[in-house]
């Protein structure tokens, strides 16, 4: 199976965090941007929220597993955490300035 006894603790923490925390940030951004896009396209707010909540956890499971297949955690952090923050900012702007 795996050589888990040979993996350095710091590497493990980095690897786990990149998928778990990065994944959460990604999904947070996905949900935020998704809701605002949905409302912008004409959906009632609660509808959009319900839809995104239905999708969010499927997205999490997928990106989490994806993270573990990538060689370098830097890539995982960039895509997941970076992407998540970017989407959150975009969604926040959309929500604050265009929807109210």
């Amino acid at each position, binding site marked *: 199976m795996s050589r888990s*006894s040979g993996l350095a603790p710091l590497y493990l923490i980095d690897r786990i965090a990149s998928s778990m925390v990065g994944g959460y940030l990604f999904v947070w951004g996905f949900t935020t941007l998704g809701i605002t896009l949905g409302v912008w396209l004409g959906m009632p*707010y609660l*509808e959009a929220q319900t839809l995104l909540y239905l999708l969010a956890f499927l997205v*999490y*499971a997928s990106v989490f597993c994806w993270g573990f297949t990538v060689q370098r955690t830097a890539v995982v952090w960039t895509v997941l955490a970076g992407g998540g923050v970017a989407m959150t900012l975009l969604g926040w702007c959309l929500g604050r300035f265009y929807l109210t």
Partner: protein
Amino acid sequence: MFSTLRQSMAWVHTWFGLVLGFLLIVIFFFGSLSVFDREIDRWVLPETRFEPQIMPSYEGILEQAFNHVAPETDELAAAKMRVEGELPEQLQIMNWGAYTTHRDPTLYLYAEYAVPNNPNDPFDHIHGYATIDPRTGAFLPKDHLKIGSEFFYPMHYRLYLHWENLGYIIVGVAALIMLVALVSGVIIHRKLFREFFTFRRHKHTQRRVLDLHNMTGVVALPFHFFFAFSGLVIFAYIYLPVSATVLQTPAFAAAQEEAKDKGLAFAPAGQSAAIASVDTMVVAAKRLWSERGMPGDVGYLFVNHPGDINSYVSIYRAGRDAVSLVGQGIHFNSVTGELIYQDPDPTAISIINEFLTGLHLQHFEHWLLRWLYVIGGLMGCICIATGFIFFVEKRKRDSQQVTTVRWVDAFAVTSITGMLLATMAILVANRLLPVDLEHKGSWEIRAFFMVWLLSLGHAFWRSNIVAQGLISPAWREQCWGVALLSVLAVLLNWTTTGDHLLKTLFNGYWPVASMDLVLLTLSGLSIKVALSLRQREGDALLLMEQG
């Protein structure tokens, strides 16, 4: 990190499964018990052993009951700390509601009271709760804990942790990891369909245990997946509170728009007005539901800002015949009794959401489906338990992993037999402690956690021989404990209430009869397992001496 997808998924499945498995088995087990939470309530509260009742008259019973509900003392004390100045003697009532299902003899009431002068939150409020006998309006003593719906059930969705939302979050993380464990499990299990029915009982321990782990995991995969997923969707607003944070502005604007569109006033006017006949509104609501082809009973009755001119009454239908929850709400002007708004037919997204949350929360009336759920939940527990056992068996004879193996085995004992012991202990405590004991509920909960802690200590004490490749006797010893306590619980039900098994079977009072039968079955199974473990312990010893 790993050369193949399969290798990486195997690592994720093993280590995340192991660590979160201890939490997940608790969540699964108490989830299984929660399917019959109200029936457990009947067993622990003999004074509630009467037939389920429909929502009673507002004028006759509810109004008086609501007026007697008071804010929870601990919430009141906490509120005093966060406001500027003194709190008024009588807090302004914001809303109140009553909730019942086809399985409830007693009625659950709650009220929300406005907390003024909070600089941080203009909508600050605290709660009051009560349970009444809907036939008379009599209040049930607060000290009488509903062990099923007020302990086992919260144990399931928030590990009975009160502080902030920590319990919810831990359960949420466990559920997310469970989804990951299911996906990774499918990826690593190559012979998914070929070994669908495979359980090679006579093979060596690792093969046998892994077969059972795979079978309980794969066969019940739809169940495991949809319960983890729907559980997350139910509390999504806690796990991803975007509308309360980043999207606060558009969310609040949308809520106000919606309230305006529906004609349901958001805030009180500050002008008092008497409430019209709610019973008449209930009759009107039932008629409207019948006209829409969905006759039904009231599941949830809600009054917003009672006594104010802006007040409205919302009446929701009990969803006992379909999977969706209380639905098809009808809203009336409290003062005039006029119909303001009827909830429209649900959209496609709503239907999907209601189906998912409804299949998890189970308001439907279907005894077979409930029992099938319990079996599914217990299969989940067996999947996790066999996962632990496989982990330990695989590494038992590896001298490098002695400490890990010992810890995992001890925690496994605690989370399986220990958890059963604690569950039996709270039932026994419920029967032994005096009915009028002050804070009886708190003492019962203490008994639960104390016994669980003791089982942890016992497991650790007895687990040192695992290092030698043997089976810890803690498993067998705790099995005997479970066997004894479960029989004791049944006997105590007989001696303290007189409702022994033959009587409840003859009278067809299924909540208590089923509980006693389950306890006796558990006892029988525990004895069988204990005896078989003694055999296996001997075999393992022989193997070690020979090897």
